[in-house]
Protein backbone atom coordinates (compact mmCIF):
# COMPACT_ATOMS: atom_id res chain seq x y z
CA UNK A 1 0.00 0.00 0.00
CA UNK A 2 2.73 2.38 1.03
CA UNK A 3 4.64 1.44 -1.99
CA UNK A 4 1.78 2.38 -4.27
CA UNK A 5 1.43 5.70 -2.54
CA UNK A 6 5.13 6.23 -2.87
CA UNK A 7 5.05 5.49 -6.57
CA UNK A 8 2.12 7.84 -7.02
CA UNK A 9 3.93 10.49 -5.02
CA UNK A 10 6.99 10.18 -7.20
CA UNK A 11 4.90 10.43 -10.34
CA UNK A 12 3.13 13.48 -8.90
CA UNK A 13 6.40 15.21 -8.01
CA UNK A 14 7.75 14.31 -11.40
CA UNK A 15 4.78 15.92 -13.14
CA UNK A 16 4.98 19.00 -10.99
CA UNK A 17 8.63 19.44 -11.93
CA UNK A 18 7.88 18.89 -15.63
CA UNK A 19 5.04 21.39 -15.44
CA UNK A 20 7.23 23.94 -13.72
CA UNK A 21 9.83 23.60 -16.42
CA UNK A 22 7.00 23.95 -18.91
CA UNK A 23 5.70 26.99 -17.15
CA UNK A 24 9.15 28.57 -17.28
CA UNK A 25 9.72 27.67 -20.87
CA UNK A 26 6.09 28.41 -21.66
CA UNK A 27 6.47 31.99 -20.73
CA UNK A 28 9.97 31.69 -22.17
CA UNK A 29 10.99 35.10 -22.80
CA UNK A 30 14.41 35.83 -24.17
CA UNK A 31 14.74 38.95 -22.10
CA UNK A 32 15.08 38.20 -18.39
CA UNK A 33 15.19 41.48 -16.56
CA UNK A 34 15.07 40.59 -12.87
CA UNK A 35 15.82 44.15 -11.84
CA UNK A 36 13.19 45.86 -14.01
CA UNK A 37 15.68 48.14 -15.69
CA UNK A 38 13.78 47.83 -18.96
CA UNK A 39 10.26 49.01 -19.65
CA UNK A 40 7.70 46.52 -20.96
CA UNK A 41 7.81 48.22 -24.38
CA UNK A 42 11.57 47.94 -24.51
CA UNK A 43 11.35 44.26 -23.52
CA UNK A 44 8.91 43.39 -26.26
CA UNK A 45 10.92 45.35 -28.82
CA UNK A 46 13.98 43.34 -27.91
CA UNK A 47 11.98 40.11 -27.92
CA UNK A 48 10.82 40.92 -31.43
CA UNK A 49 14.35 41.64 -32.64
CA UNK A 50 15.51 38.36 -31.07
CA UNK A 51 12.75 36.40 -32.87
CA UNK A 52 13.99 37.87 -36.14
CA UNK A 53 17.59 36.83 -35.42
CA UNK A 54 16.34 33.36 -34.49
CA UNK A 55 14.60 33.01 -37.85
CA UNK A 56 17.33 34.54 -39.97
CA UNK A 57 20.44 33.02 -38.41
CA UNK A 58 19.19 30.02 -36.40
CA UNK A 59 20.73 31.51 -33.27
CA UNK A 60 18.95 31.87 -29.95
CA UNK A 61 19.62 35.10 -28.09
CA UNK A 62 19.09 35.61 -24.35
CA UNK A 63 19.59 38.75 -22.31
CA UNK A 64 19.73 38.36 -18.52
CA UNK A 65 19.93 41.26 -16.10
CA UNK A 66 20.39 40.23 -12.47
CA UNK A 67 22.25 41.02 -9.28
CA UNK A 68 22.02 37.48 -7.89
CA UNK A 69 24.24 34.89 -9.57
CA UNK A 70 23.73 32.30 -6.80
CA UNK A 71 27.38 32.57 -5.82
CA UNK A 72 28.58 31.55 -9.24
CA UNK A 73 30.98 33.44 -11.44
CA UNK A 74 29.47 35.33 -14.37
CA UNK A 75 30.70 32.64 -16.76
CA UNK A 76 29.28 29.79 -14.70
CA UNK A 77 25.96 31.51 -14.16
CA UNK A 78 25.60 32.48 -17.84
CA UNK A 79 26.41 28.95 -19.02
CA UNK A 80 24.15 27.27 -16.48
CA UNK A 81 21.28 29.68 -17.08
CA UNK A 82 21.42 28.93 -20.78
CA UNK A 83 21.67 25.15 -20.31
CA UNK A 84 19.13 24.81 -17.48
CA UNK A 85 16.40 26.79 -19.19
CA UNK A 86 16.63 24.91 -22.44
CA UNK A 87 17.57 27.76 -24.73
CA UNK A 88 19.13 27.15 -28.10
CA UNK A 89 18.29 26.33 -31.71
CA UNK A 90 18.93 22.95 -33.24
CA UNK A 91 20.53 19.81 -31.79
CA UNK A 92 23.62 21.70 -30.65
CA UNK A 93 21.48 24.36 -28.92
CA UNK A 94 23.13 27.21 -30.82
CA UNK A 95 22.80 30.63 -29.36
CA UNK A 96 24.21 33.44 -27.23
CA UNK A 97 23.47 34.73 -23.78
CA UNK A 98 24.45 38.14 -22.50
CA UNK A 99 24.55 38.32 -18.73
CA UNK A 100 24.54 41.75 -17.17
CA UNK A 101 25.77 40.98 -13.69
CA UNK A 102 24.94 44.05 -11.60
CA UNK A 103 26.43 42.46 -8.47
CA UNK A 104 29.90 42.37 -10.01
CA UNK A 105 29.17 45.17 -12.55
CA UNK A 106 30.30 42.69 -15.15
CA UNK A 107 28.98 41.68 -18.54
CA UNK A 108 29.48 38.18 -19.93
CA UNK A 109 28.58 36.76 -23.30
CA UNK A 110 28.23 32.98 -23.37
CA UNK A 111 28.15 31.20 -26.71
CA UNK A 112 26.88 27.69 -27.43
CA UNK A 113 26.91 25.35 -30.42
CA UNK A 114 27.30 27.05 -33.81
CA UNK A 115 27.69 30.42 -32.07
CA UNK A 116 31.01 29.31 -30.59
CA UNK A 117 32.51 29.12 -34.05
CA UNK A 118 30.96 32.32 -35.40
CA UNK A 119 31.74 34.43 -32.35
CA UNK A 120 35.47 34.02 -31.98
CA UNK A 121 37.44 35.40 -29.06
CA UNK A 122 38.30 38.58 -30.94
CA UNK A 123 34.68 39.14 -32.03
CA UNK A 124 33.40 38.59 -28.49
CA UNK A 125 36.01 41.08 -27.22
CA UNK A 126 34.74 43.63 -29.72
CA UNK A 127 31.10 43.03 -28.79
CA UNK A 128 31.97 43.45 -25.11
CA UNK A 129 33.73 46.72 -25.99
CA UNK A 130 30.59 47.90 -27.77
CA UNK A 131 28.24 47.24 -24.86
CA UNK A 132 30.48 48.43 -22.03
CA UNK A 133 30.03 52.17 -22.60
CA UNK A 134 26.16 52.15 -22.70
CA UNK A 135 26.17 49.78 -19.71
CA UNK A 136 28.39 52.03 -17.64
CA UNK A 137 25.99 54.86 -18.44
CA UNK A 138 23.07 52.71 -17.28
CA UNK A 139 21.69 52.51 -20.79
CA UNK A 140 20.61 48.88 -20.72
CA UNK A 141 18.23 49.04 -23.67
CA UNK A 142 20.89 50.55 -25.93
CA UNK A 143 23.44 47.95 -24.79
CA UNK A 144 20.97 45.15 -25.59
CA UNK A 145 20.25 46.60 -29.03
CA UNK A 146 23.97 46.93 -29.77
CA UNK A 147 24.37 43.30 -28.71
CA UNK A 148 21.63 42.13 -31.06
CA UNK A 149 22.96 44.27 -33.92
CA UNK A 150 26.44 42.79 -33.50
CA UNK A 151 24.94 39.29 -33.60
CA UNK A 152 23.29 40.15 -36.89
CA UNK A 153 26.53 41.55 -38.31
CA UNK A 154 28.61 38.53 -37.39
CA UNK A 155 25.79 36.10 -38.12
CA UNK A 156 25.82 37.51 -41.68
CA UNK A 157 29.61 37.10 -41.90
CA UNK A 158 29.45 33.54 -40.61
CA UNK A 159 32.38 31.48 -39.35
CA UNK A 160 35.68 33.23 -40.17
CA UNK A 161 38.22 31.34 -42.24
CA UNK A 162 40.79 29.41 -40.26
CA UNK A 163 38.63 29.50 -37.13
CA UNK A 164 39.52 26.85 -34.55
CA UNK A 165 38.53 25.98 -31.06
CA UNK A 166 40.90 26.11 -28.14
CA UNK A 167 40.04 23.77 -25.31
CA UNK A 168 40.17 25.41 -21.91
CA UNK A 169 40.31 23.63 -18.61
CA UNK A 170 36.82 22.73 -17.49
CA UNK A 171 36.00 24.91 -14.52
CA UNK A 172 34.09 22.32 -12.60
CA UNK A 173 36.22 20.32 -10.20
CA UNK A 174 37.37 17.00 -11.65
CA UNK A 175 38.46 14.77 -8.80
CA UNK A 176 41.41 12.40 -8.91
CA UNK A 177 38.96 9.54 -8.74
CA UNK A 178 37.13 10.85 -11.85
CA UNK A 179 40.39 10.89 -13.73
CA UNK A 180 41.24 7.36 -12.62
CA UNK A 181 37.82 6.19 -13.79
CA UNK A 182 38.23 7.93 -17.10
CA UNK A 183 41.68 6.39 -17.65
CA UNK A 184 40.36 2.96 -16.69
CA UNK A 185 37.87 3.22 -19.53
CA UNK A 186 40.49 4.55 -21.90
CA UNK A 187 41.30 2.23 -24.77
CA UNK A 188 44.74 3.80 -25.15
CA UNK A 189 45.86 2.78 -21.68
CA UNK A 190 45.17 -0.85 -22.58
CA UNK A 191 46.91 -0.44 -25.90
CA UNK A 192 49.98 1.16 -24.33
CA UNK A 193 50.15 -1.51 -21.61
CA UNK A 194 49.82 -4.23 -24.23
CA UNK A 195 52.52 -2.70 -26.38
CA UNK A 196 54.97 -2.15 -23.54
CA UNK A 197 54.48 -5.64 -22.14
CA UNK A 198 54.83 -7.13 -25.61
CA UNK A 199 58.04 -5.24 -26.31
CA UNK A 200 59.45 -6.09 -22.87
CA UNK A 201 58.71 -9.79 -23.39
CA UNK A 202 60.28 -9.74 -26.83
CA UNK A 203 63.30 -7.91 -25.51
CA UNK A 204 63.84 -10.37 -22.65
CA UNK A 205 63.27 -13.35 -24.98
CA UNK A 206 65.80 -12.17 -27.52
CA UNK A 207 68.48 -11.26 -25.01
CA UNK A 208 68.99 -14.88 -24.04
CA UNK A 209 71.94 -15.52 -26.36
CA UNK A 210 75.45 -14.17 -26.34
CA UNK A 211 76.88 -11.76 -28.83
CA UNK A 212 79.98 -11.44 -30.96
CA UNK A 213 82.43 -9.15 -29.20
CA UNK A 214 85.29 -9.21 -31.65
CA UNK A 215 85.67 -6.79 -34.51
CA UNK A 216 87.86 -6.26 -37.53
CA UNK A 217 90.72 -5.07 -35.32
CA UNK A 218 90.86 -8.11 -33.01
CA UNK A 219 93.05 -10.29 -35.19
CA UNK A 220 94.73 -7.57 -37.19
CA UNK A 221 98.48 -7.54 -36.59
CA UNK A 222 99.39 -4.39 -34.65
CA UNK A 223 100.38 -1.67 -37.07
CA UNK A 224 100.24 -4.04 -40.01
CA UNK A 225 97.52 -2.17 -41.85
CA UNK A 226 98.89 -0.11 -44.70
CA UNK A 227 96.71 2.05 -46.90
CA UNK A 228 98.60 1.61 -50.15
CA UNK A 229 96.38 3.72 -52.34
CA UNK A 230 93.62 6.21 -51.67
CA UNK A 231 91.77 8.39 -54.16
CA UNK A 232 88.77 10.68 -53.91
CA UNK A 233 87.74 11.95 -57.33
CA UNK A 234 85.12 14.63 -57.68
CA UNK A 235 82.41 13.48 -60.07
CA UNK A 236 79.62 16.07 -60.15
CA UNK A 237 77.45 18.27 -58.01
CA UNK A 238 73.80 19.10 -57.78
CA UNK A 239 72.00 21.89 -55.96
CA UNK A 240 68.34 21.88 -55.08
CA UNK A 241 66.31 24.71 -53.63
CA UNK A 242 63.10 24.45 -51.68
CA UNK A 243 60.80 27.21 -50.55
CA UNK A 244 60.75 27.65 -46.80
CA UNK A 245 57.23 27.11 -45.54
CA UNK A 246 56.06 30.09 -43.51
CA UNK A 247 54.08 29.18 -40.49
CA UNK A 248 50.40 29.86 -41.21
CA UNK A 249 49.09 28.66 -37.90
CA UNK A 250 49.04 32.10 -36.30
CA UNK A 251 46.70 33.57 -38.90
CA UNK A 252 43.50 31.83 -37.81
CA UNK A 253 41.08 33.14 -35.25
CA UNK A 254 40.42 31.09 -32.20
CA UNK A 255 37.33 30.37 -30.15
CA UNK A 256 38.16 29.40 -26.58
CA UNK A 257 35.81 26.76 -25.24
CA UNK A 258 35.15 25.16 -21.87
CA UNK A 259 32.65 22.71 -20.44
CA UNK A 260 29.91 23.81 -18.07
CA UNK A 261 28.69 21.78 -15.11
CA UNK A 262 26.14 20.03 -17.31
CA UNK A 263 28.93 19.03 -19.66
CA UNK A 264 27.84 21.31 -22.50
CA UNK A 265 30.57 23.12 -24.36
CA UNK A 266 30.43 26.91 -24.23
CA UNK A 267 32.50 29.72 -25.54
CA UNK A 268 32.40 33.38 -24.70
CA UNK A 269 34.02 36.28 -22.91
CA UNK A 270 33.27 39.25 -20.74
CA UNK A 271 34.37 42.50 -19.19
CA UNK A 272 33.71 44.94 -16.37
CA UNK A 273 31.68 48.11 -16.76
Amino acid at each position, binding site marked *: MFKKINVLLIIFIFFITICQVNIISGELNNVKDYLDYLTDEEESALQEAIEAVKNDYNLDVVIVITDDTEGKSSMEFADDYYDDNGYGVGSDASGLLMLINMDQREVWISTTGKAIDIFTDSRIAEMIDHVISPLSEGNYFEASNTFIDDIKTYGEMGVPQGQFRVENEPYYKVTYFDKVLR*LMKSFYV*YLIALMISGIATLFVSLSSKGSVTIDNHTYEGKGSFVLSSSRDDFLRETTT*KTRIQTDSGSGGSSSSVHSSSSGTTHGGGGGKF
Partner: protein
Amino acid sequence: MDSVKGYKCKNCGGGLEFDPASQKWKCDYCFSEFDKHEIETETPLEDSLEESMPELDSYHCTSCGAELIADSTTSATFCLYCRNHSIIKSRFSGKFKPKNLIPFKITKEQAEEIYKKWINKRIFAPKEFKKKEEIEKITGIYAPFWLFNCKGDGMISGEGTRTRTWTSGNYKYTQTKYYKVFRRGNAEYQKVPVDASKKLDDKFMHMIEPYNYNDLTDFSMKYMSGFMAEKYDVEASEAEGVMKARVGKYLEQRLKETVNGYSSFVTHEKKVSLSDIREEYSMLPIYLLNNKYKGKDHIFIVNGQTGKVVGDTPISRSRQFAFMGIVFVIVWVISVFGGAFFV
Protein backbone atom coordinates in the same frame (compact mmCIF):
# COMPACT_ATOMS: atom_id res chain seq x y z
CA MET B 1 104.17 -48.28 -25.36
CA ASP B 2 100.91 -47.45 -23.69
CA SER B 3 98.19 -46.15 -25.94
CA VAL B 4 96.48 -44.44 -23.05
CA LYS B 5 98.26 -41.97 -20.84
CA GLY B 6 97.52 -40.97 -17.30
CA TYR B 7 99.59 -38.71 -15.06
CA LYS B 8 100.30 -40.20 -11.64
CA CYS B 9 101.20 -38.59 -8.34
CA LYS B 10 104.76 -39.47 -7.37
CA ASN B 11 103.79 -39.54 -3.70
CA CYS B 12 100.78 -41.83 -3.75
CA GLY B 13 100.20 -42.97 -7.31
CA GLY B 14 96.81 -41.28 -7.58
CA GLY B 15 95.74 -39.42 -10.70
CA LEU B 16 97.04 -35.88 -11.19
CA GLU B 17 94.80 -33.20 -12.55
CA PHE B 18 95.56 -29.73 -13.83
CA ASP B 19 94.18 -27.08 -11.48
CA PRO B 20 93.31 -23.83 -13.34
CA ALA B 21 93.34 -21.74 -10.15
CA SER B 22 96.95 -22.47 -9.20
CA GLN B 23 98.07 -23.45 -12.71
CA LYS B 24 99.60 -26.54 -11.05
CA TRP B 25 98.94 -30.24 -11.07
CA LYS B 26 97.12 -31.53 -8.04
CA CYS B 27 96.64 -35.01 -6.61
CA ASP B 28 93.07 -35.59 -5.55
CA TYR B 29 94.06 -38.19 -3.01
CA CYS B 30 97.03 -36.81 -1.10
CA PHE B 31 96.67 -33.13 -2.09
CA SER B 32 100.24 -32.98 -3.37
CA GLU B 33 100.90 -30.18 -5.83
CA PHE B 34 103.42 -30.19 -8.66
CA ASP B 35 104.38 -27.34 -10.88
CA LYS B 36 105.21 -27.59 -14.55
CA HIS B 37 108.89 -28.17 -13.89
CA GLU B 38 108.31 -30.91 -11.34
CA ILE B 39 105.89 -32.81 -13.48
CA GLU B 40 108.28 -32.67 -16.41
CA THR B 41 111.11 -34.13 -14.37
CA GLU B 42 108.75 -36.73 -12.97
CA THR B 43 107.85 -38.02 -16.40
CA PRO B 44 111.04 -37.27 -18.25
CA LEU B 45 110.00 -39.01 -21.39
CA GLU B 46 107.30 -36.78 -22.85
CA ASP B 47 106.28 -39.30 -25.41
CA SER B 48 106.97 -38.32 -28.92
CA LEU B 49 103.75 -37.53 -30.66
CA GLU B 50 105.31 -36.62 -33.96
CA GLU B 51 104.81 -40.09 -35.29
CA SER B 52 101.29 -41.14 -36.04
CA MET B 53 100.07 -43.90 -33.79
CA PRO B 54 97.60 -46.47 -34.96
CA GLU B 55 94.00 -46.00 -33.92
CA LEU B 56 92.94 -48.98 -31.78
CA ASP B 57 89.54 -50.62 -31.56
CA SER B 58 89.32 -50.04 -27.85
CA TYR B 59 91.16 -48.23 -25.10
CA HIS B 60 91.50 -49.25 -21.52
CA CYS B 61 91.79 -47.24 -18.35
CA THR B 62 95.32 -47.23 -17.00
CA SER B 63 93.96 -47.42 -13.47
CA CYS B 64 91.26 -50.08 -13.44
CA GLY B 65 91.53 -51.64 -16.84
CA ALA B 66 87.95 -51.03 -17.83
CA GLU B 67 87.22 -50.14 -21.43
CA LEU B 68 86.93 -46.41 -22.07
CA ILE B 69 83.64 -45.30 -23.53
CA ALA B 70 84.39 -42.46 -25.89
CA ASP B 71 83.40 -40.96 -29.23
CA SER B 72 85.81 -41.38 -32.10
CA THR B 73 86.89 -37.76 -31.73
CA THR B 74 87.28 -37.75 -27.96
CA SER B 75 90.95 -37.60 -27.13
CA ALA B 76 90.91 -37.03 -23.39
CA THR B 77 88.24 -38.33 -21.08
CA PHE B 78 87.43 -39.97 -17.75
CA CYS B 79 87.03 -43.59 -16.95
CA LEU B 80 83.35 -44.16 -16.29
CA TYR B 81 84.15 -46.61 -13.48
CA CYS B 82 87.03 -45.15 -11.52
CA ARG B 83 86.90 -41.45 -12.66
CA ASN B 84 90.58 -41.70 -13.54
CA HIS B 85 91.51 -39.36 -16.36
CA SER B 86 92.77 -40.98 -19.51
CA ILE B 87 94.45 -39.44 -22.52
CA ILE B 88 94.25 -41.37 -25.76
CA LYS B 89 97.66 -40.76 -27.21
CA SER B 90 96.95 -41.79 -30.77
CA ARG B 91 94.48 -38.95 -31.03
CA PHE B 92 97.19 -36.44 -30.22
CA SER B 93 99.77 -37.97 -32.48
CA GLY B 94 100.86 -37.43 -36.05
CA LYS B 95 98.65 -34.94 -37.81
CA PHE B 96 96.53 -34.67 -34.68
CA LYS B 97 99.36 -33.31 -32.59
CA PRO B 98 98.33 -29.78 -31.62
CA LYS B 99 100.94 -27.08 -31.93
CA ASN B 100 99.85 -25.17 -28.91
CA LEU B 101 97.14 -24.60 -26.34
CA ILE B 102 95.78 -22.13 -23.85
CA PRO B 103 95.48 -23.74 -20.40
CA PHE B 104 92.28 -23.43 -18.42
CA LYS B 105 92.10 -20.32 -16.24
CA ILE B 106 88.55 -20.75 -14.98
CA THR B 107 87.87 -23.56 -12.52
CA LYS B 108 84.87 -25.82 -12.78
CA GLU B 109 83.41 -24.19 -9.66
CA GLN B 110 83.76 -20.75 -11.24
CA ALA B 111 82.14 -22.02 -14.42
CA GLU B 112 79.21 -23.39 -12.41
CA GLU B 113 78.88 -20.05 -10.66
CA ILE B 114 78.90 -18.26 -14.01
CA TYR B 115 76.22 -20.61 -15.27
CA LYS B 116 74.05 -20.08 -12.21
CA LYS B 117 74.22 -16.34 -12.63
CA TRP B 118 73.51 -16.59 -16.31
CA ILE B 119 70.57 -18.99 -16.03
CA ASN B 120 68.98 -16.96 -13.24
CA LYS B 121 68.84 -14.01 -15.60
CA ARG B 122 67.03 -16.15 -18.16
CA ILE B 123 63.60 -15.74 -16.64
CA PHE B 124 61.93 -17.66 -19.44
CA ALA B 125 64.13 -20.72 -19.05
CA PRO B 126 62.31 -23.85 -17.85
CA LYS B 127 62.89 -24.83 -14.21
CA GLU B 128 64.79 -27.98 -15.24
CA PHE B 129 67.70 -25.83 -16.36
CA LYS B 130 68.21 -24.46 -12.88
CA LYS B 131 68.56 -27.75 -11.03
CA LYS B 132 71.76 -28.47 -9.16
CA GLU B 133 72.37 -31.82 -10.81
CA GLU B 134 72.00 -30.11 -14.16
CA ILE B 135 74.56 -27.47 -13.29
CA GLU B 136 77.06 -30.11 -12.16
CA LYS B 137 77.06 -31.62 -15.64
CA ILE B 138 79.18 -28.71 -16.83
CA THR B 139 82.40 -30.06 -18.37
CA GLY B 140 85.78 -28.56 -19.15
CA ILE B 141 86.80 -29.38 -22.69
CA TYR B 142 89.82 -28.57 -24.79
CA ALA B 143 88.20 -27.69 -28.08
CA PRO B 144 90.13 -28.06 -31.33
CA PHE B 145 90.66 -24.85 -33.26
CA TRP B 146 92.53 -23.89 -36.38
CA LEU B 147 94.39 -20.65 -35.88
CA PHE B 148 95.12 -18.96 -39.18
CA ASN B 149 97.80 -16.42 -39.99
CA CYS B 150 97.56 -14.67 -43.29
CA LYS B 151 98.17 -11.52 -45.24
CA GLY B 152 95.29 -9.73 -46.86
CA ASP B 153 95.30 -7.27 -49.69
CA GLY B 154 92.02 -5.60 -50.57
CA MET B 155 90.35 -2.72 -52.30
CA ILE B 156 86.99 -1.04 -52.15
CA SER B 157 85.50 1.56 -54.41
CA GLY B 158 82.21 3.35 -54.29
CA GLU B 159 80.43 6.64 -54.31
CA GLY B 160 80.55 9.16 -51.51
CA THR B 161 78.52 12.31 -51.15
CA ARG B 162 79.07 15.54 -49.28
CA THR B 163 76.08 17.78 -48.67
CA ARG B 164 75.95 21.38 -47.60
CA THR B 165 72.78 23.34 -46.89
CA TRP B 166 72.23 27.06 -46.52
CA THR B 167 69.33 29.47 -46.72
CA SER B 168 69.01 32.54 -48.82
CA GLY B 169 65.84 34.60 -48.77
CA ASN B 170 62.86 32.31 -48.71
CA TYR B 171 64.77 29.37 -50.12
CA LYS B 172 66.75 26.57 -48.61
CA TYR B 173 69.58 25.33 -50.81
CA THR B 174 71.04 21.81 -50.66
CA GLN B 175 74.26 21.19 -52.51
CA THR B 176 75.37 17.59 -53.00
CA LYS B 177 78.84 16.78 -54.30
CA TYR B 178 79.54 13.28 -55.59
CA TYR B 179 82.94 11.63 -55.36
CA LYS B 180 84.35 8.38 -56.61
CA VAL B 181 86.14 6.90 -53.62
CA PHE B 182 88.87 4.31 -53.95
CA ARG B 183 90.85 2.64 -51.18
CA ARG B 184 93.41 -0.10 -51.28
CA GLY B 185 95.29 -1.51 -48.36
CA ASN B 186 96.84 -4.56 -46.82
CA ALA B 187 97.15 -5.99 -43.35
CA GLU B 188 98.36 -9.06 -41.56
CA TYR B 189 95.93 -11.18 -39.62
CA GLN B 190 97.13 -13.32 -36.78
CA LYS B 191 95.59 -16.37 -35.19
CA VAL B 192 92.08 -16.05 -36.53
CA PRO B 193 90.39 -18.98 -34.80
CA VAL B 194 88.05 -21.33 -36.61
CA ASP B 195 86.17 -24.08 -34.81
CA ALA B 196 87.57 -27.43 -35.90
CA SER B 197 84.99 -29.66 -34.27
CA LYS B 198 81.74 -30.58 -35.94
CA LYS B 199 80.26 -31.48 -32.58
CA LEU B 200 80.51 -27.92 -31.31
CA ASP B 201 78.26 -25.26 -32.77
CA ASP B 202 80.27 -22.89 -34.99
CA LYS B 203 78.11 -19.91 -34.17
CA PHE B 204 78.58 -20.25 -30.41
CA MET B 205 82.26 -21.06 -30.75
CA HIS B 206 82.63 -17.82 -32.67
CA MET B 207 80.82 -15.91 -29.95
CA ILE B 208 83.10 -17.03 -27.10
CA GLU B 209 86.03 -15.34 -28.83
CA PRO B 210 88.35 -13.62 -28.21
CA TYR B 211 91.03 -15.61 -26.44
CA ASN B 212 94.05 -13.85 -25.06
CA TYR B 213 96.92 -15.37 -26.99
CA ASN B 214 99.52 -14.25 -24.45
CA ASP B 215 98.73 -17.47 -22.56
CA LEU B 216 99.33 -19.63 -25.60
CA THR B 217 101.90 -22.33 -24.76
CA ASP B 218 103.34 -25.28 -26.61
CA PHE B 219 101.14 -28.29 -26.54
CA SER B 220 101.75 -30.84 -23.86
CA MET B 221 99.50 -33.74 -22.95
CA LYS B 222 99.86 -32.97 -19.25
CA TYR B 223 97.45 -30.04 -19.59
CA MET B 224 94.78 -32.44 -20.79
CA SER B 225 94.89 -34.19 -17.44
CA GLY B 226 91.59 -33.62 -15.69
CA PHE B 227 89.71 -32.36 -18.73
CA MET B 228 87.98 -33.72 -21.73
CA ALA B 229 89.48 -33.06 -25.13
CA GLU B 230 88.31 -33.42 -28.69
CA LYS B 231 90.40 -33.86 -31.82
CA TYR B 232 89.58 -31.99 -34.98
CA ASP B 233 87.22 -33.45 -37.56
CA VAL B 234 87.09 -30.35 -39.72
CA GLU B 235 90.08 -30.32 -42.04
CA ALA B 236 92.23 -27.20 -42.27
CA SER B 237 91.28 -26.73 -45.92
CA GLU B 238 87.61 -26.70 -44.98
CA ALA B 239 88.16 -24.25 -42.15
CA GLU B 240 90.14 -21.99 -44.44
CA GLY B 241 86.97 -21.09 -46.32
CA VAL B 242 85.37 -19.87 -43.11
CA MET B 243 88.47 -17.88 -42.23
CA LYS B 244 88.68 -16.29 -45.70
CA ALA B 245 85.12 -14.99 -45.48
CA ARG B 246 85.80 -13.54 -42.05
CA VAL B 247 89.11 -11.90 -42.88
CA GLY B 248 87.66 -10.58 -46.13
CA LYS B 249 85.02 -8.77 -44.12
CA TYR B 250 87.57 -7.47 -41.60
CA LEU B 251 89.72 -5.94 -44.28
CA GLU B 252 86.73 -4.46 -46.07
CA GLN B 253 85.55 -2.85 -42.85
CA ARG B 254 89.07 -1.64 -42.16
CA LEU B 255 89.19 0.06 -45.55
CA LYS B 256 85.76 1.57 -45.03
CA GLU B 257 86.98 3.14 -41.80
CA THR B 258 89.42 5.19 -43.86
CA VAL B 259 86.57 6.73 -45.86
CA ASN B 260 85.97 9.88 -43.84
CA GLY B 261 84.31 13.21 -44.33
CA TYR B 262 81.38 11.98 -46.39
CA SER B 263 77.71 12.24 -45.48
CA SER B 264 77.06 8.95 -47.22
CA PHE B 265 79.10 6.21 -48.78
CA VAL B 266 77.94 3.28 -50.86
CA THR B 267 80.34 0.50 -51.78
CA HIS B 268 80.08 -0.51 -55.40
CA GLU B 269 83.03 -2.82 -55.70
CA LYS B 270 85.25 -4.75 -53.32
CA LYS B 271 87.97 -7.32 -53.64
CA VAL B 272 90.11 -9.04 -51.06
CA SER B 273 92.81 -11.58 -51.71
CA LEU B 274 94.66 -13.49 -49.03
CA SER B 275 98.15 -14.87 -49.19
CA ASP B 276 100.69 -16.61 -46.95
CA ILE B 277 97.97 -18.59 -45.27
CA ARG B 278 99.39 -20.71 -42.46
CA GLU B 279 97.40 -22.64 -39.92
CA GLU B 280 98.18 -23.97 -36.49
CA TYR B 281 96.28 -26.67 -34.72
CA SER B 282 95.40 -25.44 -31.22
CA MET B 283 93.47 -26.55 -28.18
CA LEU B 284 91.41 -23.81 -26.59
CA PRO B 285 89.59 -24.27 -23.28
CA ILE B 286 85.81 -24.12 -22.94
CA TYR B 287 83.28 -25.22 -20.39
CA LEU B 288 80.32 -26.84 -22.02
CA LEU B 289 76.87 -27.70 -20.78
CA ASN B 290 74.61 -29.44 -23.21
CA ASN B 291 70.98 -29.58 -22.21
CA LYS B 292 68.38 -31.58 -24.01
CA TYR B 293 64.88 -30.13 -23.76
CA LYS B 294 61.93 -31.54 -25.67
CA GLY B 295 64.28 -33.26 -28.11
CA LYS B 296 66.32 -30.16 -28.87
CA ASP B 297 69.88 -29.44 -27.79
CA HIS B 298 70.57 -26.26 -25.92
CA ILE B 299 74.14 -25.26 -25.46
CA PHE B 300 75.87 -23.22 -22.82
CA ILE B 301 79.54 -22.37 -23.25
CA VAL B 302 81.97 -20.46 -21.07
CA ASN B 303 85.30 -19.36 -22.44
CA GLY B 304 87.67 -21.36 -20.19
CA GLN B 305 90.21 -18.56 -20.20
CA THR B 306 88.22 -15.32 -20.04
CA GLY B 307 84.88 -16.48 -18.64
CA LYS B 308 82.84 -15.03 -21.50
CA VAL B 309 79.45 -16.68 -21.73
CA VAL B 310 77.28 -17.70 -24.62
CA GLY B 311 74.37 -20.02 -24.80
CA ASP B 312 70.76 -20.43 -25.52
CA THR B 313 67.90 -21.63 -23.46
CA PRO B 314 64.52 -22.78 -24.60
CA ILE B 315 61.70 -20.37 -23.95
CA SER B 316 58.91 -21.60 -21.78
CA ARG B 317 55.67 -20.23 -23.22
CA SER B 318 53.88 -20.26 -19.90
CA ARG B 319 56.66 -18.24 -18.28
CA GLN B 320 56.59 -15.84 -21.19
CA PHE B 321 52.83 -15.32 -20.85
CA ALA B 322 53.09 -14.89 -17.11
CA PHE B 323 55.80 -12.28 -17.56
CA MET B 324 53.81 -10.42 -20.18
CA GLY B 325 50.72 -10.50 -17.99
CA ILE B 326 52.60 -9.09 -15.00
CA VAL B 327 54.18 -6.32 -17.06
CA PHE B 328 50.77 -5.52 -18.57
CA VAL B 329 49.15 -5.18 -15.16
CA ILE B 330 52.04 -3.08 -13.78
CA VAL B 331 52.03 -0.72 -16.75
CA TRP B 332 48.23 -0.47 -16.62
CA VAL B 333 48.20 0.34 -12.92
CA ILE B 334 50.98 2.91 -13.29
CA SER B 335 49.33 4.60 -16.25
CA VAL B 336 45.88 4.71 -14.66
CA PHE B 337 46.81 5.77 -11.13
CA GLY B 338 49.96 7.69 -12.02
CA GLY B 339 48.62 9.12 -15.26
CA ALA B 340 45.61 10.51 -13.40
CA PHE B 341 47.92 13.07 -11.79
CA PHE B 342 48.81 14.49 -15.17
CA VAL B 343 45.59 14.43 -17.22
